[in-house]
């Protein structure tokens, strides 16, 4: 028997306020003269690592961003020592031990690589996963970083999702980002109860478009204690031919549900983003990921923003954003 939907009017699925987050650093690398250079970064006060990064660039196949570009797939790197990671010393000094690089392709063209870096300790719970199709036509874990959620990592490695089932299978079938509220109950999968035990509640999944036919789904699973973010948004940009995107889903620790749906299919009341206006507008206008810290344009009491464009072929279809 699983826990049914609770009737508390409060947002039971939303993480409580915390000061620590699962992701320490977010970077946006963009191609420039055949190399990847740093465009944006949210370094969470890790100035030395930021300085090192700003002095660094990557050729195709070089370092973590270059590998994601070269292999045209999301890459997870757990442990930098002895690896192809180029900023090992700076990362070590900053306490960063793992990273995930997500290439952003528009058709065959690399637009950017988003790199998120995490610190390893015994308390940080969360998951950043990459799922891909196996030979039997199911989604299997390609790789993932879980922090201290070891049991959940083990279960995930042994879980397969058919199309349409679970967060990864749902994203794969829908070809659209999905934001799930309560990963720990009401699902057939053993992984769900493992998620519940690990405290993972909110899950954001998104398709990662690459020039190959191989599907990739990226999932960010957030725990209450060390959330990946305290605010998640999904913007539907398919109406973007008039330079606009509408908020199709979103939850915020402070404001509660962000979505609006008047039920008649028009979403007439949904918040709208306009190209180049505000943070989401920057993503919409440029078609590039944005990682920003401080500054204006953020919701009240939020200090950092990551916006990631989702492409289908050459078309920007959605933007996912998370805030801390």
């Amino acid at each position: 028997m699983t826990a049914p939907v609770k009737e508390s009017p409060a947002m039971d699925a939303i993480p409580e306020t915390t000061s620590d987050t699962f992701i320490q650093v977010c970077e946006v690398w963009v191609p420039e003269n055949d190399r990847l250079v740093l465009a944006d970064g949210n370094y969470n006060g890790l100035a030395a690592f930021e300085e090192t990064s700003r002095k660094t660039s990557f050729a195709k196949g070089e370092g973590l961003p270059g590998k994601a570009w070269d292999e045209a797939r999301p890459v997870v790197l757990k442990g930098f020592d002895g690896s192809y990671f180029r900023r090992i010393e700076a990362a070590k000094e900053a306490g960063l031990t793992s990273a995930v690089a997500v290439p952003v392709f528009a058709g065959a063209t690399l637009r950017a690589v988003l790199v998120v870096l995490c610190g390893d300790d015994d308390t940080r719970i969360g998951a950043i996963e990459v799922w891909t199709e196996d030979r039997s036509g199911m989604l299997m874990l390609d790789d993932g970083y879980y922090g201290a959620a070891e049991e959940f990592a083990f279960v995930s490695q042994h879980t397969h999702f058919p199309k349409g089932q679970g967060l990864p299978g749902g994203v794969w079938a829908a070809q659209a980002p999905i934001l799930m509220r309560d990963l720990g109950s009401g699902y057939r999968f053993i992984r769900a109860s493992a998620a519940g035990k690990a405290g993972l509640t909110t899950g954001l999944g998104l398709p990662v478009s690459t020039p190959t036919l191989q599907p990739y789904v990226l999932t960010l699973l957030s725990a209450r204690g060390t959330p990946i973010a305290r605010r998640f948004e999904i913007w539907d940009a398919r109406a973007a031919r008039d330079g606009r995107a509408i908020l199709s889903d979103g939850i915020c620790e402070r404001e509660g549900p962000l979505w609006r749906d008047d039920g008649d299919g028009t979403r007439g009341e949904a918040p709208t983003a306009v190209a180049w206006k505000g943070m989401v507008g920057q993503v919409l206008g440029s078609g590039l990921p944005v990682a920003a810290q401080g500054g204006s344009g953020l919701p009240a009491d939020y200090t950092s923003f990551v916006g990631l464009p989702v492409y289908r072929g050459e078309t920007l279809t959605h933007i996912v954003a998370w805030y801390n």
Partner: protein
Amino acid sequence: MTRKKLVVIGAGMASGRALEHLFDADPDGWDVTLFNAEPRGNYNRIMLSPVLSGEKSYGEIVIHDDDWYADHRVTCRFGERVLAVDRAARTVTGETGTVAYDKLLIATGSNPFMIPLPGHDLDGVIAYRDLEDTNRMIDAAATPGARAVVIGGGLLGLEAAAGLRLRGMEVTVVHLMGHLMDRQLDEAAGYLLRKDLEGRGIDVRVSANSKEILGENGKVKALVLEDGTELPCDLLVMAVGIRPNTALAAEAGLAVGRGIHVDDQMITSDEHILSVGECIEHDGAVFGLVAPLYDQAKVAAATLTGTEAAFKPRELSTKLKVTGCDLFSAGDFAEGDGREDIVYRDPARGVYKRLVIEADRLIGAVMYGDTADSNWFFGLIQSGEDISAMRETLIFGPAYQGGPDADPLSAVAALPRDAEICGCNGICKGTITDAIAGGATDLGAVRAQTKASASCGTCTGLVEQLLQVTLGDDFEAPTAQPICACCDLSHEDVRRLIKGRELKSQEAVWQELGWKTRNGCHVCRPAVNFYLLADWPLEYRDDPQSRFVNERKHANIQKDGTFSVVPRMWGGITSAAELRAIADAAEKYNVPTVKVTGGQRIDLLGVRGEDLPAIWDDLGKAGLVSGHAYSKGLRTVKTCVGTDHCRFGTQDSTGLGIKLEQILWGSWTPHKVKLAVSGCPRNCAEATCKDVGIVCVDSGYQVGIGGAAGMDVKETERLVDVATEAEAIEWTTAFIQLYRENAKYLDRPYKWIAKVGLDWVKETLASADERARLVEAFELSQSIYRKDPWAEHAKQAERYQPLADLTLEAAE
């Protein structure tokens, strides 16, 4: 100031919105008591589906929480049923007591309709209506290996199915009608929706009638369909519709029909009682979508505060809350006189858009896969503005409305460089225009350089438009003829794609091959119908509505509206009994003309339409079946008497003719097919001008093909000489199947052979393996079609009604 007493029965979305308006307009005027049978207040019921799927939490869909009710001093009696309304005393009695009212608002909503199938009361058979149902489904989904069946392929049923699937269940949807969401979508959008849901692993059964629910130990075990199919399940969700909940109102003596009768001010037959929501009936209509409920709520609040307002139903739109299934429908999109469709399809992206125009106004819209402009189209439907000035570019949406000079080419010209043109290969407009600028000045060159239009070919029209936009008059459109104006593809391309992409329904062809019309026209529909039944005999069934009138009627219509009836005479052989039956029928039905045909059988001309089933029945009792004298199929096998009687006969030509006719009859072919078997080279059966003509010789059988004796006269060409009758039958059958698999619709064999070449036909059939495959494929098809259509229609003779206008030829 004395507060008036308002009692509200039902804390749903309609009454909740009415209270919001009321408190806005008159914050201190009312003491409100709110009864609700559910043990909770107002929540957004239409968002239960995302709660089921896990994409929303219950907390997010609560509209009015405890604080809201407290702030507005609403006395909440949740979880308490109302037992009676005393209209004379103006009181409402609940389970815990009675409360008086000045005004009463009844908002009892609706009850889900449960089909009274045997077993509908088993544990595990539920409706989908409220939070309790949602929780039961969530619980069921968490059970390893659990299966669900959802009866009802409407909005709610499909949302339930998708939610259960996302949570890990194996799900089957059973829908009575021929396509999903048949009330909101047309067949084309229904096809895409089904494809989308099947892509999520949901098993979809349409045209499926539920018969019985099986149980075990009081719990649901399976659903049995009318055709005997048993669908195992641990959960059965019925989502087949709702009925207004009028019981309390009826008991109180209010006027009730399908719903509680209300006027334009939402006042019931009692001036002190108002009603809103799914429980009402207004001007003969009942309501199930939220938009009109909110309008009713606004009017009810205005009525309560003494403000003038009137409820007026408005156009409605629909959205399915399944992430990734983007559909929109609004207005009226039924077929009708004076209505015109504008259809746009993008097969690679799974996009379908259809606009329905009447008297220069947009009256309906259906969209799937790209609903970005739905608000704009919905606005046009609601406003009823004249769209004639933007008629040509309307389907492209508001971004392409360039004024009276706009045309489809300008819409293509206005596409951004990154607009995807070829979905198969992911080629965008910029890549193509760069190639054109670089010297690729025809379709072939663009294909070679960019791969655009090189796969499925459905973007060929767009690529040609880009060539036209870029090169202007320097571009000459290719001369390959499409089937008709409905598409850009030739017959050959359509045949190739139906096979190659395994398209097994008309809707699949229209959508995946980018048809520009809703469901084809009198030119393409019969062709596509034939190609589908020829390639997919088991999966696709012949569609009579896609056939010419004679084929639909199984008789040839004559110029005076009567019909001719030609029973089959196998190989031209008949008997006294058959002739007697024909004579009796001719007399019984006053057949004015009885004629011997050139194909060696007897034609009864002048039969009245209403007599057809009866005359077929009479002939059938004598063993006579349809001669298919009206069909694109096997007509006759003419024979001479051969060795049985003729001094010159070399083989049993009559026997061979009968065998061939018994093998080939009933099969559909691209055009009519006539055969003949002559017993010797004197050729009394005139075999050398038939589609297949066999001339018997001492050494065996000379099989000729491609003869004609109509508008064109042509002698057959020798396909093969064989020694045995069995070989003659094998070669003939294989040839007919080769013709069925490859010819353009309405090409007689001689025309088809001229296109592909006799050598190719000979080489193909020279392979014993290929002949065996063709014969096997033919037999598979004949397992469906080798039957007498007259007998089937005769069975329905008692129910037969003549059509109002038998000369109508919809498929022509």
